[in-house]
């Protein structure tokens, strides 16, 4: 399946670009991410916990940034194995362009799953993938924007709130600013 969406982020393109290359930001933005280590060049080893329909699994896998065009676009892709639960993989081509008052972020994401997740959860895969993508970029937006005033991210789940959510809103900006 393919998903596309656009977000307008109230932050400078340079801030947004630096954030996406920052592993701490990635870790905080990937829903269910329990640990992540590595570098932009070599990719990140990540452990992500997710529940798809009736199947919960801990995925271990690689998150990579590629096709990097400085300040303009890149591709984030990930592939994780969840043992008998199967596997999940996906990616997003992300583009950044400056707009008045901030940055327009456009993404085209795709996701595939295999194994038990596909057999048991197929009806909800599409909505699940959309939820994940929305959540990732909502968290990312929250991380880079000024702490106030702006609306709540739209699709933040309970886990997301518990993990990082609104408490970390704007934290990246504060960190570097």
């Amino acid at each position, binding site marked *: 399946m393919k998903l596309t969406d656009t977000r307008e982020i109230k932050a400078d393109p340079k801030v947004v670009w630096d954030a996406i290359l920052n592993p701490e930001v990635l870790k905080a933005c990937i829903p269910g991410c329990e640990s992540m280590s590595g570098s932009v060049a070599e990719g990140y080893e990540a452990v992500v916990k997710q529940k798809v*329909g*009736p199947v919960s699994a801990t995925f271990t896998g690689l998150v990579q940034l590629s096709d990097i065009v400085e300040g303009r676009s890149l591709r984030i892709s990930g592939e994780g*194995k969840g*043992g*008998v639960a*199967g*596997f999940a993989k996906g990616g997003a081509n992300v583009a950044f362009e400056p707009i008045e008052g901030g940055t327009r972020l456009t993404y085209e994401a795709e996701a*595939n*799953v*295999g*194994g*038990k997740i*596909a*057999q*048991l959860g*197929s*009806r909800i895969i599409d909505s699940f993938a959309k939820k994940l993508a929305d959540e990732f970029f909502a968290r990312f937006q929250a991380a880079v924007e000024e702490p106030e005033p702006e609306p709540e991210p739209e699709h933040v789940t309970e886990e997301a709130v518990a993990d990082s959510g609104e408490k970390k809103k704007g934290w990246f900006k504060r960190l570097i600013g």
Partner: protein
Amino acid sequence: MPKDHGIGASSKRREDVRFLTGRGVYTDDMALHGQTYAVFVRSTVAHGRIKSIKTANAAGMPGVLAVFTGEDFKDVGGNPAGWLINSRDGTPMREPKRPVLAYSKVRHVGDAYAAVVAETYAQARDAAEQLAADSEIEELPAIIDMKAAVADPSNRVHDEIPDNLCFDWGWIEDNRAAVDAAMKAAPHVVTLELVNNRLVPNAMEPRASIGEYNPGTGDYKLTTTSQNPHLTRLLVAAFVLGIPENKLQVVAPDVGGGFGSKIYHYGEEALVLAAAKKLGRPVRWTAERSESFLTDAHGRDHVTKIELGCTKDGQILAIRTETLANVGAYLSNFSTATPTFLHGTLMAGPYKVPHVYVNVKTVFTNTAPVDAYRGAGRPEATYSLERVIDKMCRELNLDPFEVRRKNLLTPDQFPYTTPVGLVYDTGNYQATLDRVMAMADVAGFEKRAAESKKRGKLRGMGLSTWIEACGIAPSHLVGVLGSRVGLYDAATVRVNATGNISVMTGAHSHGQGHETVFAQIVAEKLGIPESSVEIVHGDTAKIPFGMGSYGSRSLAVCGTAMAKAVDKIIAKGKKIAAHMLEASEGDITFENGKFQVAGTDKAKTFGEIAFSAYVPHNYPLETLEPGLEETAFYDPANFTYPAGAYICEVEVDEGTGKVDVVAFHCADDFGNVMNPMIVEGQVHGGVGQGIGQALCEFTAYDETGQLLTGSYMDYPMPRAEDVPFYNVDYSCQTPCTHNPLGVKGCGEAGAIGSPPAVVNAVIDALHRGGHTHVTHIDMPVSPSRVWSAING
């Protein structure tokens, strides 16, 4: 007054006592001393190259006794295809090896590439999970869509098969030009493209196998969910593992449904045997439901273009079809016969059609293997034919009943040689058509439709006729058609000293009711109570030989073998009676359980004869052997050809697209009927499965080859509310001319005849509702498809 005993009685199914009280014994019920558990490691990708499998971690885990990978079975035989099909150009089909465990490549999601055996199921499962984590499989692009598979030679399911084609079959190739010419000359040509949807068999009992090996004797035993233990023995012993047939016993105990999926030998059976030998302990495996979805041989999956040439008044002149048939990743045992000789040979239906040509291309894809499923090829032929005839009636504004009647063969035309290679021995297709029309009250339809309309529903009526070639046998015929096995059957009738009887039959009952019906036949022939007859099946150590149960063959072929063995018992009994009564053998008659000297009151009962056979105190041993046991092998002269006509009435909700089957009428000709209740049950089950195919069931693979309908959350089986009360009739009987029981077989009928009746009814309802732009909807005719069709 209906009979309450013997042939024609609705004797209650004796097997139901144990089934309904939880006392059936299925493979998984058997607990064995020292047993161990096998769990398979299955591919999660549809197509991949196995780069490495590190077994050390799994092998060292608690309780793990052995780890197997494809490499361990690389040098044993492959699981073979049972029929050789030649392509139109005369070249033989491509037969890639189907290994016990995949090596070098995995070819569908669920393809097993390793296995673990451990002391407990949980330990085996844990280790299998570890093994999956320690396996590196490079995912390759999946080949799922048949048209794309054939079009793109660069991507191959089997590296050695460039276009993913198994064969390109023409039937009958020599007639092709004549059919093309007839089609060209026809005043009207109807064309229809349709999909016969892939089905998951969904037997209630998942597959299960237990392997045993006795190092003291070198004997193997396989207990397995099989429809045909002897065939499994042949395949696993002679073809795969190289075990002498006499050292392998195969037992198929109570089996909870098969529908075709348990005909075939599967790699798990070979694995548990090889593992049992290695460990010297029993090794067992029972499929999870998910494994059944992924690995049981699926059914159907044809994409067909059918053309029908006719006169403007509906006389059929020519039929031509082009079909892509999916065989999946490997050739299952009957997978090459199902889309060809069980499909193309039936394309004339019960009609007099001068010109018929069938082309079938079978295609390898990265999906589960596809093979025979209840009806096997014949539902696909019937669906194509009855849908295109229905379309012809709409295009030419003709009455569907009259068009069928006009084209049906008439009783005086039998035996009839079809243009697709069969000889129908007998039938009366007008009779079943008349019967079903009376049952369905066709004349009263408009009134019912008006009543439905008041409730906001569109009512439609659909007709289909059907015929099948079943009683799958004659060896000489199937041999000509490419079968690598003979198809006949065998039975032993053993009369015990006290006069009761054990019948060892080559049929296998996995729900059909053989134990009841076969006993009725023996009891009738010998004039003894049914309760004196026990039917033994499903064990190669007990039964003489048998090709098993499928293709509606149990009664027509296995039952006839049994009847012939009973005839031999009677002949032997006459000899014994002649001796005991001091009469000439030729003067002995046998009737109502009594051997009698004709014209006298000198007689011996069957029980007395039996006892004497085992207490032969004064036998003339040079001319009379003690004992009373006979075996017969029976290979019939022809297939049997049951046929019938079905009418379905549906109500369609225009707002939601939901289809309700509100009435279903079946008039079938099964020849002589042995047990009416069981025949009705078989028709009910078959029609239920057909309605399931027509309305609900759909097997969806995504473009990467993931099975999206891999559980009952997404694979809808028909439920009680989806089916109506069936109206079943079998009073039109033209007994089969070449078996002594005059029977034709009823097991597959419902699944063959019902899908087109349902779809024809839905199209009829839509046309009556003014949606005349809808000429076809592919199965399953789900609410979303109907709604989309209505709203164009």
